């Protein structure tokens, strides 16, 4: 770099006042990192949840909230809104335009990780646009006739379950060690990480949920307790939800019309992405408040750059006078101060990426532990471009006041002594 060039002088000046500048850069980095986090986490969380249907288009479940139905059957959160008769599942599966219908039943957990009863087709015949299920080495999918389990990667890591392990589930969706079932399940496979809520789930045959000790079936409206060794009549069976893969959206609209508006027994959540997106839309005001806060914090960072430069101005007047006496034009002196403030903002913005990475790693870890959804730390968001650009612009703007003062420095007076 050419000695005496504006960039060289600016960098040397930043180096000389490294403590004050370091604090300013840190402040700016925190501000920019916060802005990154507010915008990027919101976008990623929205994308992860809205696109988290694992290839299914709709969910059929008990009459009630569509959101609760989706959260329970797709994201494995919340309680089940209730059950629907097995016959509704069969009717949905046979309907023209329904490519796949997969029943799921919930009601138990193992150490806080939800047990989901389903059919083998959930794994062997997923929707075309669903991510393929992969098992870790040495594993296989469960045999529907046996007490076998396939465990999501996160649940396996947290519980220590591995192929060959056995466990007894606990009743309910919340872990309570006083309510352990006597049935023992054998782990036969561990799913490879999918970065979806599935990672937090333990899958067993749906028959296992029906027959779990203490479970009562009311598919026919009457109480039925399955007996070991005896088949469960279809009319008594019931499921928590049915995942539907539809041939086209028109089928979904038609089903929605029929089930939600004309029927009184069940609810169809369709399309899954729209149901989840509505939550984010309803919570949009919170995001707007956070965005406003992050804008203000960026302005405060700009103000801290201004304060830093103004504070050093009086001690630098002799330096400005010498530079002018050596032949540096006034406009270059103005440019030097603006460049310094811009560099502070730029370095702070670069630090903002580090702050953002740390924040997102922490947030990602929490969100994954709570929901199984994994945020992509380095996924691109436009804020990564406009955030630093806005910060550098603010920094340059903040530099204009001290630059103007430097521009007007009286040279002769400051050269004496």
């Amino acid at each position, binding site marked *: 770099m050419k*000695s005496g060039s504006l960039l*060289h002088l600016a960098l*040397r000046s930043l180096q*000389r006042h490294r403590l004050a500048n370091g604090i300013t850069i840190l402040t700016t980095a925190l501000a920019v990192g916060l802005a990154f986090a507010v915008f990027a986490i919101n976008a990623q969380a929205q994308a992860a949840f809205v696109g988290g249907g694992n290839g299914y288009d709709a969910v059929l479940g008990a009459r009630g909230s569509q959101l609760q139905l989706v959260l329970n059957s797709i994201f494995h959160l919340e309680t089940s809104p209730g059950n629907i008769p097995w016959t509704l599942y069969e009717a949905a599966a046979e309907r023209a335009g329904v490519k796949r219908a997969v029943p799921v039943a919930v009601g138990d957990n193992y150490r806080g990780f939800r047990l989901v009863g389903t059919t083998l087709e959930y794994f062997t015949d997923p929707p075309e646009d669903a991510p393929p299920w992969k098992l870790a080495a040495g594993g296989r999918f469960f045999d529907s006739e046996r007490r076998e389990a396939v465990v999501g990667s996160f649940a396996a890591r947290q519980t220590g379950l591995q192929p060959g392990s056995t466990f007894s589930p606990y009743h309910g969706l919340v872990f309570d060690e006083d309510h352990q079932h006597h049935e023992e399940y054998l782990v036969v496979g561990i799913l490879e990480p999918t970065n979806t809520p599935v990672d937090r789930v333990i899958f067993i045959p749906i028959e296992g949920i029906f027959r779990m000790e203490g479970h009562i079936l009311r598919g026919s409206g009457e109480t039925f307790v399955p007996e070991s060794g005896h088949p469960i009549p279809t009319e008594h069976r019931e499921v928590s939800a049915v995942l539907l893969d539809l041939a086209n959206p028109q089928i979904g609209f038609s089903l929605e019309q029929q089930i939600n508006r004309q029927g009184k027994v069940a609810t169809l959540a369709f399309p899954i992405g729209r149901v989840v997106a509505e939550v984010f839309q309803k919570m949009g005001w919170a995001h707007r408040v956070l965005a406003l806060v992050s804008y203000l914090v960026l302005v405060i960072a700009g103000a801290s750059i201004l304060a830093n430069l103004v504070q050093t101005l009086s001690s630098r007047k002799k*330096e400005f006078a010498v530079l002018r*006496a050596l*032949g540096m034009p006034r406009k270059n002196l103005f440019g030097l101060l603006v460049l310094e403030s811009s560099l502070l903002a730029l370095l702070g913005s670069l630090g903002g990426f580090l702050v953002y990475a740390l924040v997102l790693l922490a947030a990602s870890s929490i969100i994954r532990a709570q929901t199984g959804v994994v945020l992509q730390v380095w996924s691109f968001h436009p804020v990564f471009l406009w955030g630093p650009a806005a910060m550098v612009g603010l920094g340059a703007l903040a530099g204009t006041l001290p630059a103007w003062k430097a521009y007007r420095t009286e040279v002769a007076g400051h050269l004496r002594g």
Partner: protein
Amino acid sequence: MSLLELQDVRKSFDHPVVEGSFSLEKGEHVAVTGPSGSGKSTLLHLISGILRPDSGKIFVSGVEITALKETELDQFRARQIGYVFQTFHLLESLTALENVEAAVTFAGGSNFSKARALLVEMGLEEKLSSFPGQLSVGQQQRVAVARAVVNHPPLVLADEPTANLDESRSREVLDLLRETCRANDASLLVVTHDTASVQGFDRIIDYREHFQEGP
């Protein structure tokens, strides 16, 4: 025409500070002496274009600098005038070498080898990367002189270069300045309150007699 010529120059603040005419020939070494606060520094500021006179004309190397626009004057000063400031005024954020190289850049040059060569010649090879705060007073003096002459200006101005120095150190600085200017065939104008240290200059002018009471 002389290398430097002041024609009926007048500069006042609340009272006249500089008033008169003066000329300096090419290669000539002149000392202007007078007590502190008499206006000697103002005289150098006028000659270098840092201040503009209220009236009169100043010519350097045949160019009427009082007629130049500010940006032209900045460029002219960087190329044509070397300036050794009172207490040297090295840029604290730059190393010794960078202080000299910066003067080359300001003059529009890019050949930094002469900056290094000059400092090496002055015995500062080991101090090229030292910041002013890490240099002794004597080393700072040499860097300041190197910065003033690195662009081979025809005119070198020195403002109280011996202020706060003992006799031997004062002599050392002035000898260095004179030798360097002689080597570059540059004219040297030194203003100082210390009449003893400028013995041997081509001319010694009493400031008050010449610029405040008339020659």
